[in-house]
């Protein structure tokens, strides 16, 4: 590995404006999360020049900047997804800590994301360089083949214009880029298939001791659903974090894990050590984040990176409906709302800011699309949490946050009636539901007057038997769940904030209710005490068929600029190209018409690889110094070094 150049040089707004005016950019990319980073890497690798605008500062590209995030996280009393990241009123982000129960009919504008209800959504994303991969969990599942045709198969949701088979080669590229640890023989279920002889870049992470305890209790449990028998089997998850490289990868050439991003050769992050605070931040950077890809793009010398530049308007040329330029506001410091404005342009434009921000920017620019679907069909995964105490110590709080789960409710005929769901077994105890272990310490100190050795032992006793299941329930496209904007709600720079209307349909609620039933069976088989309870005071509370539940957001925003087969039924085509504006691409999970029961990142990353292939074909007459890199196979299998 060449160590010394693993850093990113930044340019000034004036340079970006001037180079834009001179027509030097093939593509302008808005956003440096995983979508923007992969797009930048793929295009620059093909000799194209790109400008990347990032709304946040780029301090995190240095090792000390990253360590500062880590310190923030350690010292922050709240350990929420965005705990490591400082407040930035100029490019704010949603935080789950600002969520409270909505009062019917009243808009809640406390947080950055304005909540119109009826249900409060506590999902977040991260507006820093590297995007939401800076807090993601990095569980990285492929979608099931049947997810792509949910409408034609089960009569609900929306079909994709492409199939699993179409996406399969791009899944493979995404798994290389992210560096996925998994074993093919454990993942090929319910129609998931792989190219012959495919292996993941790295071997799967070992299941935790807790996983083994749970598997022993519930493997083989049978559920009757829509005339089918579903048999439960605990399976390991594919992980976007470094494990043992598989020597058979890439025709026996193996894979080299990518460690920490730093210009100073910190020799860290080659493999997961099981630190258990994967969300939000892996202390050794063994977890993939998009900065690793961004650095590769920078190494080509063809990426200009402009941080602290918030895209504020997409401007259309009325003559041919193409995008003429993108306006941005550049701020000097997060402490002050002062900014300078500029415009940047390229042969084409790629919006890669995430499903909420892409829609927000389009709507703020007065571009709802001819279908009117920009911002609509907002989807997320709704989580039901259940928590209990096992009859024996199960080593809770050890290892990666979540190593195994249950996939057996993700498929099947019942999907025509109720939402499918996946199940995660959490190695971090009751944390998500109750704030454990901090809440345990509070209870022992305040409630039990414990200190010293007793306190220590008390925490061990309370934590080591904890079990938490997270049921990730599918949500299908529904136009009334949506993002809008309103000049009433603006951020410090005067950009309109996203307003969210969000509800959970009966279809999803039925899935949540069945999750709760399944959970009761699991606890019974495990001999565990069920401690789950859902208070009407909780912001995620709802009652369904007489029972109390709550839900938590999954941070899997999607659907706000869905792809489809025509300008009437969608915003973008299968290559994420805008139907209305030929030189505009809206990329990311916003393009997904259905998300099934897979965390969205792998699929959106695969889509970016498909899109960049299309872009490269379209721009082929602009290509420069391609040299020997033009061989697609070489590019597909090129390693990180």
């Amino acid at each position, binding site marked *: 590995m060449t*160590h010394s150049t693993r850093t990113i040089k930044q340019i000034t707004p004036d340079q970006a404006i001037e180079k834009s005016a001179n027509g030097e950019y093939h593509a302008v990319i808005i956003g440096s999360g995983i979508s923007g980073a992969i797009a930048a890497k793929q295009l620059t690798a093909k000799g194209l020049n790109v400008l990347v605008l990032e709304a946040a500062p780029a301090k995190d590209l240095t*090792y000390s900047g990253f360590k500062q995030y880590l310190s923030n996280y350690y010292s922050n009393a709240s350990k929420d997804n965005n705990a490591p990241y400082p407040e930035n009123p100029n490019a704010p982000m949603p935080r789950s800590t600002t969520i409270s129960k909505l009062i019917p009919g009243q808009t809640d504008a406390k947080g950055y994301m304005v909540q119109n209800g009826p249900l409060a959504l506590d999902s977040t994303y991260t507006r820093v360089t590297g995007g939401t991969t800076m807090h993601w969990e990095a569980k990285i599942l492929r979608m099931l083949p049947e997810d792509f045709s949910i409408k034609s198969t089960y009569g609900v949701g929306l079909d994709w214009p492409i199939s699993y088979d179409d996406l399969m080669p791009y899944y493979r590229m995404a798994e290389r880029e992210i560096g996925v640890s998994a074993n093919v023989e454990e993942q090929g279920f319910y129609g998931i298939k792989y190219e012959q002889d495919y292996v993941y870049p790295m071997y799967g992470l070992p299941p935790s001791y807790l996983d083994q305890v749970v598997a022993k209790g519930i493997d083989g449990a049978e559920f009757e659903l829509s005339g089918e028998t579903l048999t439960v089997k605990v399976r390991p998850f594919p992980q976007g974090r470094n494990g043992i490289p598989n020597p058979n990868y890439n025709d026996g050439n193996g894979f080299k*894990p990518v*460690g920490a991003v730093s210009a100073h050769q910190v*020799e860290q992050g080659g493999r997961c050590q099981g630190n258990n605070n994967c969300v939000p931040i892996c202390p050794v950077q*063994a977890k993939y984040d998009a900065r690793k890809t961004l650095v590769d793009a920078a190494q080509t010398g063809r990426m200009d990176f402009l941080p602290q530049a918030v895209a504020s308007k997409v401007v259309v040329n009325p003559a041919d409906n193409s995008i003429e330029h993108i306006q941005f506001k550049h701020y000097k410091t997060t402490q002050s709302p002062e900014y300078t404005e500029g415009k940047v342009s390229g042969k084409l434009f790629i919006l890669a800011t995430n499903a909420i921000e892409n829609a927000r920017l389009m709507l703020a620019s007065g571009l709802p699309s001819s279908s009117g679907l920009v911002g609509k069909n907002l989807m997320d995964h709704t989580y039901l949490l259940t928590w209990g105490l096992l009859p024996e110590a199960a080593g809770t709080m050890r290892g990666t946050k979540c190593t195994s789960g249950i996939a057996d409710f993700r498929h099947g005929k019942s999907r025509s009636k109720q939402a499918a769901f996946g199940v995660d077994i959490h190695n971090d105890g009751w944390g998500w539901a109750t704030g454990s272990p901090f809440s345990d310490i509070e209870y022992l100190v305040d409630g039990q007057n414990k200190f010293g050795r007793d306190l220590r032992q008390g925490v061990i006793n309370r934590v*080591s038997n904890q079990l938490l299941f997270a049921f990730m329930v599918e949500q299908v496209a529904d136009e009334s769940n949506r993002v809008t904007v309103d000049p009433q709600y603006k951020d410090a720079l005067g950009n309109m904030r996203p307003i969210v209307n969000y509800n959970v349909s009966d279809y999803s609620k039925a899935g949540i209710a069945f999750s709760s039933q399944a959970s009761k069976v699991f606890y019974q088989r495990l001999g565990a005490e069920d401690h789950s309870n859902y208070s009407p005071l909780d912001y995620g509370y709802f009652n369904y068929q007489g029972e109390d539940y709550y839900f938590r957001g999954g941070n899997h925003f999607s659907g706000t600029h869905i792809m489809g087969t025509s300008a009437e039924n969608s915003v973008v085509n299968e290559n994420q190209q805008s139907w209305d504006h030929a030189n505009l691409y809206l990329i990311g999970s916003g393009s997904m018409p259905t998300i099934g029961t897979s965390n969205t990142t792998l699929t959106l990353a695969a889509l970016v690889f498909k899109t960049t292939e299309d872009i490269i074909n379209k721009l082929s007459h602009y290509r420069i110094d391609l040299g020997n890199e033009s061989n697609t196979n070489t590019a597909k299998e090129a390693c990180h070094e």
Partner: protein
Amino acid sequence: MNNRIINNIDDLYQMLDAAIQLEHATIPPYLTALYSIHPETNIEATQVIRAVLVEEMLHMTLSANVLNALGKHPDLTAEGFVPDFPTYLPDGEKDFQVSIDKFSPDTLDTFLNIERPSKQPPDCGCTELKGCIVRSNHQKFQLKAVKPLKSATYSFYSIGDFYDAIIEGIEYLEEQAQQQGKTIFIGDVKFQVSNKYYYSGGGNVIVVTDKDSAIQALDLIKDQGEGHCQQIFDPQGEIAHYYRFEQLKLGQFYQLGDEPGKPTGEKFAVDYKAVYPVKQNPKMKDFPQESLLYQAAQKFNYSYFGFLALVNQAFRGQQDLLLGAVCDMFRLKEHATQLIRNPIPNDPSQNGGPTFEMFYALQPQTEHKTTEAEAV
């Protein structure tokens, strides 16, 4: 007279044994200095010491692979394997001692001495043994590495010279063996620690099966340590240990193209006050027998010896033990920080520290048994 240092296979075995001991000997001082830094401070110093430390672990593994390739196994549990600190290492004309100590300007100077590139002119002909200088104080050296066989008064000028002698020995002995249709690389490949189990430790471990891979492994040690032909960066762009440490001295990072002593990269400050006042070369006897510190020191030493025993087994075919060793390293860190962050009861101006005194009589249980207490 033949000035070759290694003349038969036993010489080579002994030199490699010594190499493993030498690489390990740097780990206690680096580890203690690293853990003495206040958490979340001195990010640059922490990253530099840590990076060098993990590379020393790699070097120890590479040396062990070479020895295993020759059909012999290292012994990390042999009496005297862990030196009694302060100790001497072979380097430079002016002898210096290596101590278990907190991170400080003096400690940094010692680290620079350890990693100092050879300044000996290649053809100075100083002694009749290549790469060696005459020393008169050999009784002070505890490490086998210092003394080439059959020479009471010579020692290597630098660690690089020491490895050059090994490489020359391998080339000579292998050529002799080849002439008889044999090879000195008769070790079973199953004893080679591979990248499957060795990781996150400063580069890729090299599986040694023949002369070329052996020399590749030893060259990697040399390049990472004192640098390649006195360059700051090696051809792959990796910075050598000496220059890594020098960055802390100069308060500035090197970047490609820089001249030694004149870094042009990012500047930073080193805060020697944000360091726990660890007692220099602490010993168990410095802590009152009934104190928690004494117990912690005992636990550390016991765990450390257990850890060495586990690595020893890994070098003898049970590589998969290295996966569980990650947890052991976290446990060592916990014991070490308990010592480092607490004052000595009868000398509260100084804090404790790991003593690295091994109880050779007590062979700890090395099997990986997870008790309930450990599981939580």
